[in-house]
């Protein structure tokens, strides 16, 4: 049993009662947490692709930015237990992107510059629940937070909102991505506290 260090406590802000999933605390910070170096892909070389449907569909940065966009205000929840409320984003809905593709797959593997991957059911990207976000807090999304564009899937733990996203691979099977391979939950619902495999 570890001795208690008198007076030590976790940094936390007051949390409005039912806004925060179990085991989370609210922070005003936006921690920069990455598994690798920040990529710096020039916009002239950037593209977003959806593969695994009847045809591969690719957008250049100009084509992507010409798509209809939305402003989103949402809470985000990291599996490391911090939650950030009322974060403001701007992005293209996955309803628009997936709507441009014919497919019958049920799962996706999202992939990013630098090799990061994460997986989820297609259904969790549809119905106004997910975006490819290029704006944060009223300005362009900074590179350290995933810019030029990241996946934003706020109803799942934030490791699923892949930074530096470059596309989706549609799959028949729910193939685990980077952290899912190392014991994190295959789905990751913060409201059911699905942090680790088997939770």
């Amino acid at each position: 049993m570890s001795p208690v260090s008198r007076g030590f406590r976790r940094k936390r802000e007051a949390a409005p009662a039912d806004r925060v999933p179990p085991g989370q605390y609210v922070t005003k910070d936006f921690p920069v947490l990455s598994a690798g170096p920040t990529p710096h892909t020039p916009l002239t070389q950037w593209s977003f692709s959806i593969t695994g449907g009847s045809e591969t569909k690719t957008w250049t940065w100009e084509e992507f930015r010409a798509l209809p966009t939305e402003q989103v205000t949402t809470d985000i929840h990291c599996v490391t237990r911090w939650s950030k409320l009322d974060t403001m984003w701007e992005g293209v809905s996955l309803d628009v992107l997936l709507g441009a593709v014919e497919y019958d797959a049920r799962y996706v593997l999202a992939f990013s510059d630098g090799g990061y991957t994460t997986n989820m059911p297609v259904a969790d990207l549809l119905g106004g629940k997910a975006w490819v976000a290029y704006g944060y807090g009223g300005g362009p999304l900074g590179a350290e937070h995933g810019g030029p564009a990241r996946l934003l899937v706020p109803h799942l733990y934030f490791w699923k909102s892949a930074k530096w996203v470059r596309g989706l691979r549609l799959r028949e099977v729910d193939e685990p991505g980077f952290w899912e391979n190392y014991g994190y939950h295959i789905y990751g619902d913060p409201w059911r506290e699905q942090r680790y495999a088997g939770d």
Partner: protein
Amino acid sequence: MDEETLDGNAIGGLLMEVFGAEMTTAVATCGSCGAARQVAELPVYMPGLGTVARCRSCESVLMVFTKVHRVTCVDLMGLASLG
């Protein structure tokens, strides 16, 4: 190099826990590009979900450590050798 990036010195304690020995002077050889470096000099990322040590030359993932329900999971598959 990003400001938050550490190096293998920072995981000396974790490596002692996992290997039972001081490992920061062990030479890690990258399975992708063959570069060989002491563990202490590898770039290390600790994003809270786990610890990732990469090759300094090609940035491939060499080692990943996570702690799932108090069990440490170790993946060394990015290494050609360590020692």
